[in-house]
């Protein structure tokens, strides 16, 4: 690490991973992290894990099946439009 990065300990780097991934850091902070990742296999593996974890999390979107069939909502819309917004009592 360069002298500029002396305070960029691993324990601090892992707290910046989300802001780094969301591109919310300053150019200086981003560059410091990238310099750190080159020389620190532990943090590099950690960042890689976070990326993989976020990618798998997004896959949950595809897990659930469709909810209420759109037909019932179209019916809801027509009733609302006709001035009868309340669903039929069961």
């Amino acid at each position, binding site marked *: 690490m360069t002298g500029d990065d002396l305070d960029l*300990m*691993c*324990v*601090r780097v*892992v*707290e910046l*991973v*989300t*802001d780094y991934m*969301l591109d*919310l850091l300053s150019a200086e902070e981003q560059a410091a992290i990238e310099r750190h990742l080159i020389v*620190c*296999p*532990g*943090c590099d*593996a*950690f960042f*890689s*894990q*976070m990326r*993989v*974890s*976020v990618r*798998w*999390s*997004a*896959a*949950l*979107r595809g*897990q*659930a099946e*469709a*909810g*209420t069939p*759109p037909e*019932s*909502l*179209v019916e*809801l*819309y*027509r009733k*609302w*439009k006709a001035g009868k*917004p309340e*669903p039929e009592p069961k």
Partner: protein
Amino acid sequence: VGGEERIWHDDLALAQAIAAGDEASFVALVSAHQNMLSRLARRWLVESIAEEAVQEAWLVALRSAGRFEGRSSIRSWLCGVLLNVCRARDRIERRTVPASSLVDEAEGDAEPALHPHRFIRSSHHWGGHWRIPPVAWPEPSPEDALLNKELAERIEAAVAQLPPGQRDVFLLRDVEGLSGEEACNVLGIRDTHQRVLLHRARSRIRAALEVYFDQAGGR
């Protein structure tokens, strides 16, 4: 807040068309967002009342579509409508949705991404560096159905364990793909708070997967 306010013109036009009685616009909105609302309702409520809540949210949305001003995206507006419906129902059924984001203000404070024992103590010359570094995970192929199913189950279980504020930010952002601005609109929280909650949530999900891979590596 303050300064120029962004207006979501396309979403505003859509809401106005729906309010004016254009069924095709409503069908388009439902097709785009019904699955998202359904997934969220099942996280926020017990399964048996989740679909009712979604139906109710659509009715509330219909009734207020004419008042939508385009100050947020229509999908974040819909999420907000659903969240309010779920909160109202939750007071009756069971408490899973925080009634106020104030409850979550302390969430994540002083919660490190990793347990301190993973790092060398600060008194040491190498303090703050890894003592127990993580190892890179294998990249499962999308075709590895069993592994992908197990991972999804692990993530689901970890999501269920998240504190409510972290869970909601995580679901909206990492699962449903909303932007930070949209998530803040839905949950009524500040961006700095939203970022902390997302970081804590992601850290916990990663930690759960690390346990899974440690176990899988050992068998």
